[in-house]
């Protein structure tokens, strides 16, 4: 099972999030938008590549309806369901 901490470490490293520690990213913090981590659409593409490379899971759609990319929790749930 992948944990949110595992994911956050890979995101911080893969996205080059300077000055951000694992503890500063809440499990239910929005990954995108001004109220959350502030990632953008290019980061979303990077995340699909990070998830495939690091966890061997393909993200097949941007998941506006399913909300895969919403928070660390939703992303980890998707990874664990599809691993």
């Amino acid at each position, binding site marked *: 099972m992948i944990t949110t901490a595992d994911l956050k470490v890979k995101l911080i490293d893969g996205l*080059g999030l*300077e*000055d951000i520690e694992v503890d500063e990213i809440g499990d239910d913090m929005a990954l995108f938008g001004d109220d959350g981590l502030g990632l953008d659409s290019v980061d979303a593409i990077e995340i699909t590549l990070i998830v495939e490379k690091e966890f061997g899971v393909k993200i097949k759609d*941007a998941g*506006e309806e399913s909300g895969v990319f919403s928070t660390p929790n939703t992303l980890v749930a998707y990874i664990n369901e599809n691993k």
Partner: protein
Amino acid sequence: MRIYDMDKKRYVEVTKVDNPTTKVEQLSHALYCYENEIFDVIYDKAQPALKAHVESFGEEFLKQDEMQFLYFTSGTTGTPTGVYKTKQNSKKQAWALIDTLPKDMKFNRIVTTVPFVHIYGVDIGGVVPKEMDIDVWVKENFIPEELAVEAEVEGTLIVTTPLFIKALNRIKKDTKFKNSYFLTSTAPLSPDDAKEFKERYESSIMQLFASTETGMMAYKVDDETILRAYDCVEIGESDNMLNISSPFVAKKILNETIQKVEFPFQTEDIVEMLSEHEFKLLGRSSNLAKVAGKRISTLQIESIVENLEGVECALVKVRKDEKALRDEVLDIYVESSEEIKSKDLKVALKKVFGSMHIVFKLYNNMIITKSSVGKKIGFKDKK
């Protein structure tokens, strides 16, 4: 020609939209204006500084007779430049592109990953399918796997950016796009990436060499290194820098005032001319970085950094990372009385550029070295 909203899985009408925000709304409104010859100002309203700059002119001032669109760029000095286009400029440009597409391929739709807040999105992603009279498929957010599925469909012309080409090279996908064709914008795509894509997916990429000020100038296919100018675009060189005369350029440009464009139009692209219509791009002369498809001035970034408390001087260098998806990374060297935090800089950048994600690496405790006339020429460690 119809617009297909891939998120809502339905066709939408070309119609007037007040304050368009989604890609579908932006395209629908831009094409409505194009069809009905209604003047429209197109820029990224998510950038607060740009929005304030454009709005400071007032609508009546911006509107010019016979002009179809007014696009805004960040410009070379940090002051946004407004670039007018007539309908004929956009139409001729669309047909110049259409005439260079492979004659043995028949396209029945365009799928586009780009937004419609700049010239590439509207002129290539919107006007081209309009002139070809084929449907355009739009999705708010694409991920590489989704684009791959669309590219498998025969007769698809994909309007995208080098970022997606690099991303498609990195996913594990056993498929071919033999009957589709890719168009990408000018951002760096190395010949190696283009070659890998061609060999892996058996599909071709046409890279369009263009800017907001000049429109399309030239193109190359796959891993070619030589750019070919469009037949109707005259190219020349002065002090190693490219200049052009083109039917895609309108005679008016907006800086602080509306000015007449003089031809040939001088670009800041350093080139080696190979023939009347062919050249190699060697680099850019100015301090410009390409971030999220937009050219921004490193001088503007330096100015923002130098406005932070305690900062005496800043120097910004552009670093290209061929392996990264993003265009370019900024190395920011800071001379200051106390260390600057990335978080504080992010807040300051956000005030100017909005949600545009600028990737940078901050180097504190530096001394910026200057020439005898005060020009920043380098940096050294304070310790």
